[in-house]
């Protein structure tokens, strides 16, 4: 299929009935200051940004939240339940997040493991069921497990968010085979989340068929976060356009790109006796 003149607006990302031009979601964590974070958000072109909900630190007046640092009208906020170890904790934090952000979107994270930050699939599914029933738009962070992805979609999650590699590791796509199955079987958008370290990995995720990617650490911890945010934006767009354009078939052997006939050759060399 030839799709000449692809425009950004031609290929929107649709989640829970909302339409987005950007397929790059970004986190707001780990930035050295809010000014750089704001610049990076703009450079990323992202329309969906994640935030967390935390207890106010007692005895520390003047603590700085993110409320004044983001232009809320410009973004779909995606509060997460990071730090929650059980479904019950996640549901509680989701309720707090909804009251705080006035959005019913939630990035569901249930993570009992502090070393690798790997999600608990059983508790994630249980929390998803409760939150969907309560009217939340649930975007669950999950292992790259095709069966779990199907179960989460069946209970009404708006997306699935399989990990590429552990959160913040920057190790890239270590779950490719499972991601390919999830993409092939998906009935909801697939957002590859966690572990992407460089823009080429975001492009690769999009080329394999992800509907979007979520990036935080790779941008926030770059030497130049603003430039890296722009690079990820371009990579996501390139990967998506590459997918739509349709890749060539792979071959076991080389296939010359120039004509094989009419090659200018030297006379056969004389072989000394």
């Amino acid at each position, binding site marked *: 299929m030839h799709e000449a003149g692809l425009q950004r607006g031609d290929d929107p990302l649709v989640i829970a009935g909302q339409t987005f031009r950007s397929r790059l979601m970004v*986190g*707001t*964590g*780990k*930035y050295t200051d809010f000014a750089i*974070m704001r610049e990076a958000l703009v450079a990323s072109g992202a329309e969906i940004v*994640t*935030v*967390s*909900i*935390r*207890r*106010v630190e*007692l005895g520390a*007046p*003047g*603590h700085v*939240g*993110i*409320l004044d640092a983001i232009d809320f009208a410009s973004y779909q906020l995606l*509060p*997460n339940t*990071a730090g929650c170890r059980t479904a019950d904790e996640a549901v*509680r934090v989701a*309720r*707090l*997040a909804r*009251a*705080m*952000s*006035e959005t019913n979107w939630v990035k569901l994270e249930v993570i009992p493991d502090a070393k690798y930050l790997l999600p608990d699939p059983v508790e994630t599914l249980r929390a998803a069921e409760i939150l969907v029933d309560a009217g939340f738009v649930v975007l669950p962070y999950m292992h790259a497990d095709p069966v779990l992805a199907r179960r989460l979609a069946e209970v009404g999650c708006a997306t699935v968010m399989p990990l590429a590699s552990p*959160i*913040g590791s920057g190790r890239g796509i270590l779950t490719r085979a499972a991601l390919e199955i999830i993409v092939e079987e998906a009935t909801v958008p697939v957002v590859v989340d966690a572990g992407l370290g460089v823009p080429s990995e975001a492009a690769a995720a999009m080329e394999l068929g992800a509907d979007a990617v*979520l990036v*935080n*650490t790779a941008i926030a911890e770059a030497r130049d976060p603003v430039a890296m945010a722009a690079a990820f934006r371009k990579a996501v767009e390139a990967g998506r356009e590459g997918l739509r354009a349709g890749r060539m078939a792979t071959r076991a052997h080389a296939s010359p790109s120039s004509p094989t006939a009419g090659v200018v050759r030297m006379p056969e060399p004389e072989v000394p006796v």
Partner: protein
Amino acid sequence: MYVNGEQYAHRDGLTLHALLAELQVEQGAVVVMHDDKLYGAGKIPDVLVAAPDVIEIVTMMQGG
């Protein structure tokens, strides 16, 4: 009473507004969960707080 998981000295007549003022927390910047009741930012009632109550005061922070 417990506030954000820490034991907090209760006194008769203490209200949510007085508690937030004591903690120097701006009402418009936080959500309060008072036992099972949830109050949005800027919508926190000035109700009495009892000694056995559990209160969570949260805000939005950076996160991925």
